[in-house]
């Protein structure tokens, strides 16, 4: 994390562009520009700026947005719920659909079922998420009027409204994850099904479902868990396109806005948050490994 913090800090300072200039607007006088710089501490040497920033960071202060003047912590706080909701719903839906699909495809390897699942998965990869999003909106929101077109309601406002608005973005997003996870599951299962212990399991005379679930799937789980984990991390750190299509105030859009405005504190906080998510997710993946495979020890 420390390395990430330093890297982020330097990277942003080294990219061209002056936040003071953006803040001050096109007609600013040099004096006004200078005043803004001083107030933001931008005139201090880099090392001093860095130490100040880290010191605040360790005290839980992520700084104040250069643009909106709101504390960064609060800005992110507002945006976290939609993002986490989408990520969780998407990954849950994807796993529920994709893992069985992958298992069945591997089990019925070479049959039309297998080809159908793989065809679906190619489709999932190739159709861009905004296309899926707009198609879903057109059909379910505009034509059938089953759900609202867009927006987000906090779960504290009741499960119904929350769920209603969650359904379409989740479906749209999970499309590609279903494709990815199904493919991964199938490949891992095919590998495992050729193993000697699967033959042993069959030689015991236990039924095929038990062979698949107890013997094959658990051994195939490691690569699948990895994909699910990294997929989840990607989802948390923002899905700009989906958030834009469905007008959801999530982290993805916050990041893009901050980058465009060179809002240093927000960008820094976002990158740190993202890397934190990755670290935590990877830790969870590693823990899952040791639970799944007794041979793996750290």
């Amino acid at each position, binding site marked *: 994390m420390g390395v990430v913090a330093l890297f982020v800090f330097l990277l942003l300072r080294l990219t061209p562009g002056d936040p003071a200039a953006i803040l001050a607007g096109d007609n600013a006088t040099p004096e006004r520009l200078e005043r803004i710089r001083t107030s933001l501490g931008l005139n201090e040497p880099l090392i001093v700026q860095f130490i100040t920033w880290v010191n605040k960071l360790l005290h839980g202060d992520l700084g104040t947005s250069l643009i909106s003047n709101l504390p960064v912590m609060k800005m992110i706080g507002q945006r976290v719920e939609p993002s986490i909701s989408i990520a969780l719903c998407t990954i849950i839906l994807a796993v529920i659909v994709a893992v069985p699909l992958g298992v069945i495809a591997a089990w019925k390897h070479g049959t039309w079922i297998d080809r159908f699942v793989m065809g679906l998965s190619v489709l999932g990869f190739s159709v861009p998420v905004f296309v899926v999003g707009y198609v879903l909106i057109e059909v379910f929101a505009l034509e059938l009027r089953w759900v609202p077109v867009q927006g987000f309601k906090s779960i504290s406002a009741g499960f119904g409204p929350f769920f209603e608005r969650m359904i379409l973005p989740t479906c749209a997003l999970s499309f590609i994850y279903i494709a990815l996870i199904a493919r991964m599951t199938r490949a891992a299962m095919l590998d495992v099904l050729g193993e000697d*212990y699967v033959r*042993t399991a069959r030689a015991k005379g236990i039924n095929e479902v038990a062979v698949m679930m107890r013997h094959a799937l658990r*051994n195939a789980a490691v690569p699948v868990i990895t994909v699910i984990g990294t997929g989840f991390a990607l989802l948390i750190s923002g899905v700009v396109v989906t958030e834009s299509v469905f007008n959801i105030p999530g982290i993805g859009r916050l990041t893009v806005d901050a980058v465009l405005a060179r809002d240093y504190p927000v960008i820094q906080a976002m990158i740190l948050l993202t890397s934190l998510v990755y670290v935590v997710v990877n830790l969870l993946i590693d823990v899952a490994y040791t639970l799944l495979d*007794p041979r793996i020890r*750290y």
Partner: protein
Amino acid sequence: MCCGPMDSGLATLSRPGMTERFDVTNTILDINNLVVSVGKKPGGHKIIDGISIQVRERETLCLVGESGSGKSVTSLTTMGLLPKGTLVPTGGSVKLVGEEILTATDRRLRQLRATQMAMIFQEPMTALNPVVPVGRQIDEVLRAHTKLDARARKKRILDMMEQVHLPQVERIFASYPHRLSGGQRQRIMIAMALVLEPKLLIADEPTTALDVTTQKQILSLIRELQRDHGTAVLFITHDMGVVAEIADRVAVMRQGRLVETGPLDTVLRNPTMEYTRNLLAAVPSLVPRPPREESREPVVLEANELSKVYKERAFFGKGREVVAADKVTLTLRKGRTLGIVGESGSGKSTVARCIVRLIDPTSGGVRLAGREIADISRRLLQPHRQKIQIVFQDPYRSLNPRVTVGESIAEGPINYGVAHADAIKRARELLELVGLPADAVSRYPHQFSGGQRQRIAIARALALDPDVLVADEAVSALDVSVQAQVLDLLDEIQNRLGIAILFITHDLRVAAQICDEVVVMQHGRVVEQGPAAEVLTHPKEAYTKALLDAAPGRNWDFANFRPVAEGVGASASA
């Protein structure tokens, strides 16, 4: 019958009427004119072409054959475990206690497995599910086929684990497979196969992956359990030594056909078919070949107190140290063969790899043609590499599949500055030297059989005119008839080129036939060393004696179709 509860469902199907009929012959497995083809279409290639064998109660039938003879396919057909769609039984019948297997439903086959017929496999390392404790894996059999409650099941499993002589059964019950040794895993497999007392046990090369001492224990275990339970055993193996140890009757297979079948003694003493005779004649004798006169040639390779220690770093606490080779000293003279023999984990391959500097020794010296090479840098080593070349165990993986044979052989000399055309010309000569056509240079490895590939690997090693050839289990993956040919080839090359050979093997028979001197290793240390004829006939150390004693079929002199004892005086007077 003591397998009460789980049988209740099937008894009505198989028992009445059958019993009387089969008491007459006691035939458990009756394979009649079986044909197995590739694919469903008629006219597909026949993997099994009309074989008929019977296995009776309390009998062990050994199905012997070289790779590709169809012995494993026969066993998988019996279990109904053929890969669906690729291999299909297209004719004949397989009857288990009178019940036809080939037309049985999947459901019925599942019922029969483990209760009536069970199987153990070659690789105990991979045959158990790595993520499930072994006790639960055995438990699964009981849960699938019986209505016993958890306590009764566990009692039965622990009892079975004791019958296969596992120590500390409670601990092993909860252990994962990777915590157990190969021998222990195979015992678990046997316990799993026999826990429901099936009438037929199919053992597919169950000891091939094990060390000889473990192999001996497993073989006697199978014998013992068979005696106690009256099981019929179909034992598949390629190893004549194992056949001599365990078989009551022998069936010899070749290319999907049955060559010869008969009682053990008859087949070993008076084989009627040419193929069986050749197969037996190719088994290397455990009696060492007559020693060659002592060599006065210069020493080309010397290892002096060579050690290799692997340090395992632990995140917390102290790291572990594994001494793979501990002060190994050996000398090899020009034109001689030195064997390093030992079981897995004895450090024999580590020593070979340190000598060739594929890995760096931790301490000690290696003198190659008078030059110390153990601690010189990789760059300084370069000119010396050509003096020592290595041939590996697995000819299927040691040649680059995308490079032609000629380029593979020529690569070494080209690295040392030989012109491409000259190197290819030399490759053609070398291929002829190892008994392959010169035009093989332009072909790819997959176009050759295992034995031919090993010849190519030898030609590749010889291309650099080395002083020393290291053969690391170079014949272990080959069928006996091919193995004999490759051994002859090495011998011939040595006579012609005066090359020194360092021969690493776990197989005492092979060592007895090719080595002038042997070094016996255990746990990284040299236990005993000396002239092969001396060490292998009058071993001094207990470990060497145990190794020799465990060698399967040690009482048989296969090539002369008689027990060793009868031949004493004729060939084994040493």
